[in-house]
């Protein structure tokens, strides 16, 4: 199996990367390398954006670990009231596009640097300094508010598999709760922490919307804004060079963090002696902590959703909270508003788009999870070997490749017939292939952190029965790792239903997906419709995650 996986990863991930790399070896490309790395421009093109990017990456990863870890602990390991509610709130922000967070920040903290209507605080007489309104600090905060839910999802999955025994042994040692949390619980879920921090790091460094909206007014460039700009202004080679460099930097970081989990240390928390789960009683802290968690949820999901919702109701994007109308949702066409466009729910393509989106999301989530599970399994079972390290690195890289470069590489590689295989050009299959590769990191990272918790003897005892690999996966491994696997699937699903670049570049669709419909509206300047679609997408994602939750509870009866 490792051989097959290597082949698959080579085709799906390495080949496109190599292609991108090769495309920077043309004379133009070599020139770009020089400009980026060794020219008067390299400071502004590479070093300063790199610094900003790394600050963001580390800051966001740290913030997400703290926030996501705290919430995961609260939901999984304590008797905080309304655990499911907090849990759901905590998974939401990742489903809300980060631009909504940036907009929400603006509604509150915007100052008069740009003119236009000021934010809530400024309007009420608080002077907001530039550093709080624009640049690194707000970008960091907005990104943490967006990505912490990713960390939450992964850490919660891992925490839910920490057996009571280990925690109780800590209690017997007389350790206080926080000591147990930091000394025992967090370290045994190190793989999840690594996974969460690498994903949030990658998310933060590749995020475009937040740094563009909040950073550009003070001329803060990150690698992602630079990269976007380079491609947007036709300087693809420079863009690719930046992307490759960013990949190299992140891969180095990942390499070192991987070493933390690839040594001899074991992180098995699901053992063959049955696993009870343990909940701490919070005592007097129950309600205060609940309030804190609920407040975080409010700020990070309810506020952005409100802003999104408001912007789908408000006819004027400058005045989000006045003159609300349902027109953009259900209005009849032909009137004054929206140049006579009918409401979203009257758009005949909506239903088609909805189904196309669901199909795409579900198919890609499944293919990605299957491949990701196999990869994660191989990485975990061959922990510390060269094979595992290589696979783990490679499976992480696609996250940082700009979609447009990735898609272009796919067309170039699979557009033409290869040997006996027909050309995949424009087919759904090609899209699925590319999307699978592109989203692989979510699946692999989410999977490996929970797989590593399952002690080997549980699987060995299944092997002895003569059960095949597949049978073991389905009946033993998956049920035990279900929470992490579903978490990965949801992340992939969310990413996929929002993705635009891959879809338009790779697929000549007869029926568009929602993100294309949203793009249509947005390109016409009808942000209300686009925001309404974003909300529809959000509802789909939420439904998917609730479904996953139900499924998980059915499979994990033993944990109750």
């Amino acid at each position, binding site marked *: 199996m490792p051989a097959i996986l290597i082949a698959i990863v080579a085709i799906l991930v390495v080949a496109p990367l190599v292609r991108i790399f090769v495309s920077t070896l043309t004379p133009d490309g070599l020139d770009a390398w020089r400009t980026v790395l060794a020219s008067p421009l390299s400071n502004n093109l590479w070093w300063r954006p790199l610094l900003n990017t790394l600050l963001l990456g580390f800051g966001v990863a740290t913030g997400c670990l703290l926030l996501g870890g705290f919430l995961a602990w609260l939901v999984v390991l304590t008797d905080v009231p309304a655990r499911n509610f907090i849990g759901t709130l905590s998974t939401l922000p990742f489903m809300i596009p980060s631009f909504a967070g940036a907009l929400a920040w603006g509604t509150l903290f915007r100052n008069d640097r740009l003119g236009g209507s000021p934010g809530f605080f400024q309007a009420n007489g608080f002077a907001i300094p530039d550093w709080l309104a624009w640049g690194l600090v707000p970008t960091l905060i907005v990104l943490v508010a967006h990505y912490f839910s990713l960390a939450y999802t992964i850490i919660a999955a891992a925490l839910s598999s920490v057996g009571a025994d280990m925690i109780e042994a800590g209690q017997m040692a007389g350790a206080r709760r926080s000591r147990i949390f930091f000394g025992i619980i967090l370290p045994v879920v190190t793989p999840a922490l690594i996974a969460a921090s690498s994903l949030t790091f990658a998310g933060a460094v590749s995020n475009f919307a937040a740094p563009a909206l909040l950073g550009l007014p003070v001329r803060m460039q990150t690698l992602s804004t630079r990269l976007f700009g380079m491609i947007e202004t036709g300087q693809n080679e420079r863009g690719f060079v930046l992307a490759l460099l960013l990949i190299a930097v992140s891969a180095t970081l990942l390499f070192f963090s991987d070493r933390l989990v690839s040594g001899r240390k074991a992180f098995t928390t699901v053992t063959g002696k049955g696993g009870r789960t343990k909940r701490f009683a919070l005592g007097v802290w129950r309600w205060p902590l609940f309030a804190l968690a609920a407040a975080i949820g409010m700020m990070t999901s309810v506020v952005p959703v409100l802003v999104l919702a408001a912007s789908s109701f408000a006819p004027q994007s400058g005045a989000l909270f006045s003159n609300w109308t349902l027109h953009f949702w259900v209005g009849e066409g032909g009137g004054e508003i929206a140049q006579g466009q009918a409401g979203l729910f009257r758009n005949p393509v909506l239903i088609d788009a909805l189904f196309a989106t669901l199909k795409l999301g579900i198919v890609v989530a499944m293919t990605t999870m299957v491949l990701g599970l196999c990869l994660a399994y191989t990485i975990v079972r061959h922990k510390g070997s060269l094979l595992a390290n290589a696979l783990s690195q490679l499976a992480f890289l696609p996250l940082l490749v700009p979609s447009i470069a990735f898609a272009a590489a796919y067309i170039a*590689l699979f557009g033409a017939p290869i040997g006996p295989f027909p050309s995949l*050009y424009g087919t759904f299959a090609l899209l699925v292939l590319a999307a699978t590769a592109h989203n692989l990191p979510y699946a692999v990272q989410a999977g490996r952190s929970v797989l590593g918790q399952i002690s080997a003897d549980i699987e060995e005892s299944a092997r002895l029965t003569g059960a095949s690999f597949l049978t073991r996966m389905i009946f033993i491994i998956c049920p035990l790792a279900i929470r992490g696997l579903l978490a990965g699937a949801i992340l992939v699903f969310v990413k996929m239903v929002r993705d635009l670049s891959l879809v338009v570049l790779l697929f*000549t669709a007869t029926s568009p997906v929602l993100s294309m419909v949203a793009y249509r509206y947005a390109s016409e300047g009808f942000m209300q419709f686009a925001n309404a679609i974003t909300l529809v997408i959000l509802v789909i994602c939420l439904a998917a995650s609730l479904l996953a939750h139900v499924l998980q509870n059915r499979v994990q009866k033993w944990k109750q």
Partner: protein
Amino acid sequence: QDLDKLTAEELVPLAVKEGSVTVFSLSSRIARVEAAFEAAYPGIDLIGVDMSSVKQIARVEAEQQAGVHAVDVLYLADTPVVYDKLLAAGRISNYVPPRMAGELEDRFKEPLLIHRLSTKVLMYNEAAYPDGAPVSNLWQLTKPEWKGKVLMVDPSQRGELLDLLTEIALHPDEMAEAYKAEFGKDIEVDSDLQGAGEQYVRDLFENDLILVANSDVVNKAVGDKTAKNPPVGFTTYSDRRDNEKEGWALQVANDVVPANGILFPAVLAIADNAPHPAAARLLIDFMFGDDSPSGGPAFEPFNVPGDYATRKTITDDPDSVPLEKLNAWTIDAARTAAARSRISDLIIALQ
């Protein structure tokens, strides 16, 4: 080529035989063209895919490298890049429908057929400045009173704005003259720069030019009807049409020397080895509309105030400054393409 000479009527039977035509369009309004086209030519299925110019370029490049020829017509802007990456590389070819050959000005037919022109021009708030634009010379924007009060979308993020600055750089003499008019002395150009245009770009940046992520932000900041002391910004003239809907007071500053911005084209081109060559030509012909003032159903979707049709028969919106009166430079894809990277490097260095 033989097909290039055929009239629309002659193309129809060939096109019907081909059965369909695929077009990548920068505007989603292609959907309305599709309806009109399929009504006009039953039997030819138009497949419109909306995609930004950048993605069109990336996709066509990648496809053709893989030997795939699936798209027929490209409708896109970003002409300097198109010129460089597609036209010069032979990935697309120019086609001028015989019907238009006589009607269009020559500059709209070469190197690529221009369908209409959009703008990036200096806009101000007519509610705050009821007596007309507060700016009459571009150089005023480099003075302290406009410090931090000029907005544009980051030209290192968006091609059109980069084109705007490039165009300014490409007019050193006019810029030098305007400088003299404003400051009463000859301009001194820094030794590392070429000409007054580049000096202007530098001075503008150093006067705390505010860069933002998208034009919506510019519009909101500049146009807000209630604002007391609003900034000015370079943005799209046609956004003025949203004034009422959004509560803006956007107006173009037309009396600005030497120019208030640029006009940039949206072009139509035929992809190399297009699978439906006749239908592709028929579609391009169709998209120029009929001879009515609105251009008929084929052109109407694109006939918005502030954008300009290249066809003379199509009348512009009465509220807009007519094309001839608009004090903007029209970009030249080839020249811009050549100068663009230098300006790009300049603004990168200025960040």
